[in-house]
């Protein structure tokens, strides 16, 4: 009796092809799209739609994950956007900075003489000292004090580009005049309104009375709640400890046509090691890197972003897993009817993709509302950019696909033999 079975098995073992060759299934290939996907997507959608409560819970889960990620990325981007706003505003090809300086809001001084030495390189047109300090600002409305970032430079040197600065340059040349950053936090007072109402405004910074001659727009950051722009002389009046010989950063403006990288190399060779020579991009990147990796806050945002993705994946995984478990009998039936694991995989992945799309759309809508609220509450520049949305959408898709792939293990447990 066993000869028959033995011969059948034996012949199969020796044969190149199975005896089912003439009507067997075509070899399975990974194809980005096939009619199977259309059918699987339709079945997945019907399955999801049949249980509205479960679908709503699933969509809410994905939406929640998308909002979490979008908010984290929004805050993270705001951190970098605001942190790099000041170096972005500096308008020069090269910069000299103290090697100990990790971020501009806490810049270590460098000898201004290095700027004069840099002028020895013919391509360097001028070296503009920029002075940065923090001092207490007295709110003219309620008398409270709060530290504000002081930015001092010779406005005529055109080394700083800040929105609203140009028309104020002549006024700022007068000593003890300042321009207030209207994007500062409200704790500094409603300066723009007071200025518009009274025409001019006297405020106290440190122990000095200064006149506010206008407003500029730079933006609060995680390092500074507000900014005030002035000449270098005014800054030294407010903070006498800062010497004219010690700048926070030296902006080097090059002659037209000069190659910044070549000049940078030349300056590195020429200058002593108590300064570093940075291009504008490197200056911005240093600021970015400081907040990204040196401070806990960058790490926290990175961690929270990853955590949000993980939470989202767990939510989708849980939803899909529960869905598969509750439909295990149906999947076993489909297998018995001749559907392949490959087809059923497509059903599950389609479900995951549908959930991703359905959850992402309200997630973006919810995030838009929350961005607006968070921006008004924090005075940070929170923008829900199309690029970020696209990125989070791809991430949501990937998250859902990963969750779907993880649940496929359960799908394989659907045994067609169990249907009898």
């Amino acid at each position, binding site marked *: 009796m066993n000869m028959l079975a033995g011969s059948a098995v034996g012949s199969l073992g020796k044969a190149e092809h199975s005896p089912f060759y003439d009507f067997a299934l075509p070899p399975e290939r990974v194809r980005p799209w096939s009619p199977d996907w259309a059918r699987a997507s339709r079945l997945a959608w*019907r399955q999801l739609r049949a249980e509205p409560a479960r679908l709503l819970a699933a969509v809410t889960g994905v939406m929640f994950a998308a909002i979490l990620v979008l908010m984290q990325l929004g805050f993270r981007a705001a951190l970098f956007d605001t942190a790099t706003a000041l170096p972005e505003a500096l308008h020069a090809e090269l910069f000299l900075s103290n090697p100990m300086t990790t971020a501009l809001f806490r810049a270590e001084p460098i000898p201004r003489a290095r700027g004069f030495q840099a002028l020895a390189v013919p391509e360097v047109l001028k070296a503009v000292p920029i002075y940065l300090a923090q001092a207490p600002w007295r709110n003219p409305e309620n008398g409270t004090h709060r530290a504000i970032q002081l930015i001092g430079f010779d406005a005529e040197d055109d080394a700083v580009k800040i929105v609203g600065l140009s028309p104020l340059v002549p006024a700022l040349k007068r000593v003890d005049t300042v321009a207030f950053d209207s994007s500062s936090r409200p704790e500094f007072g409603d300066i723009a309104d007071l200025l518009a109402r009274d025409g001019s405004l006297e405020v106290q910074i440190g122990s000095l009375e200064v006149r506010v001659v206008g407003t500029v727009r730079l933006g609060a950051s995680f390092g500074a709640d507000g900014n005030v722009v002035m000449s270098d002389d005014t800054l030294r009046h407010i903070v006498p400890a800062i010497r004219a010989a010690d700048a926070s950063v030296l902006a080097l403006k090059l002659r037209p046509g000069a190659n910044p990288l070549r000049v940078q190399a030349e300056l590195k060779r020429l200058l002593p090691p108590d300064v570093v020579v940075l291009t504008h991009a490197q200056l911005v990147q240093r600021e970015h890197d400081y907040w990204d990796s040196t401070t806990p806050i960058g790490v926290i945002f990175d961690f929270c972003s990853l955590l949000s993705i993980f939470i989202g994946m767990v939510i989708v995984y849980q939803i899909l897993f529960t869905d598969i478990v509750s439909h295990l009998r149906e999947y076993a039936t489909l297998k018995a009817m001749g559907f392949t694991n490959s087809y059923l995989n497509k059903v599950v992945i389609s479900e995951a993709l549908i959930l991703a799309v359905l959850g992402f759309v309200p997630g973006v809508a919810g995030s838009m509302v929350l961005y607006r609220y968070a921006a008004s509450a924090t005075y940070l520049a929170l923008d829900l950019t199309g690029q970020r949305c696209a990125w989070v959408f791809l991430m949501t898709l990937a998250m859902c696909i990963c969750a779907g792939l993880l649940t496929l293990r359960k799908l394989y447990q659907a045994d067609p033999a169990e*249907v009898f």
Partner: protein
Amino acid sequence: MSTTVEVQDLSYAFGAGSLRRPVLVNLNLAVEAGEVVLLTGPSGSGKTTLMALIGALRALQEGSCIVLGRELGGARDRDRVAIRRRIGFVFQDHRLLGFLTAAQNVAMSLEVDPAGSERDRMRRAVAMLEAVGLAGYAGARPDELSGGQRQRVAIARALVRNPGLILADEPTAALDRQSGAEITRILCELARQRSAAVLIVTHDVRILDMGDRVLAMEDGRIGAVSASDRELPPLRRARGFGPLEDVVEMSPLVKGSAS
């Protein structure tokens, strides 16, 4: 008539080592095209396992099982999937997909074949529903149908692909007498029209007269019958059977293939 199912010396066991428990022992069976065979016997006699093996739902261990001309011994998983696509299954609890309508459930059976449009599949599904007496129920969901109607949908789903073999596991178990008889009649008639072989596992003595043959299983073997039994009149002519055990003992009325 050609042979649709040919089982020779088929043995199957669950477990391994000291836990090994044989459920089928040197079993032989042949079912011809267009023939309706009823398989009965006590629980644990191996009926379900035999169905699962013939239905290519389990891999063979010993012996030979040729279904629709293809040897299942040594078949790969993918080959068994291909075979299953040529078999219609009717399950005890209908196993319809609750989130699909009756027509969609039937059309699902056609979806294993990528050819053809959705509209064509639905058209064939609706026609099949009409054939089982469910005209006008195409849009009904399983939970809107009675038990008998659900089983008719399941039969339509099994038949719509015009399979060469139909395997039905206790199709009347959850139905009342009238519905059960009606379901079996529909299944047998439509299968015969299509020259499909039908193998029905049943405990329901009320339908035993509807098949061409009744096979009794016990302890993994088909009940002992003699070659002369082939000449005996079909069971469908006899009425009023008592308990199943009586049927099994009435060997003169039971025809089984003698190997």
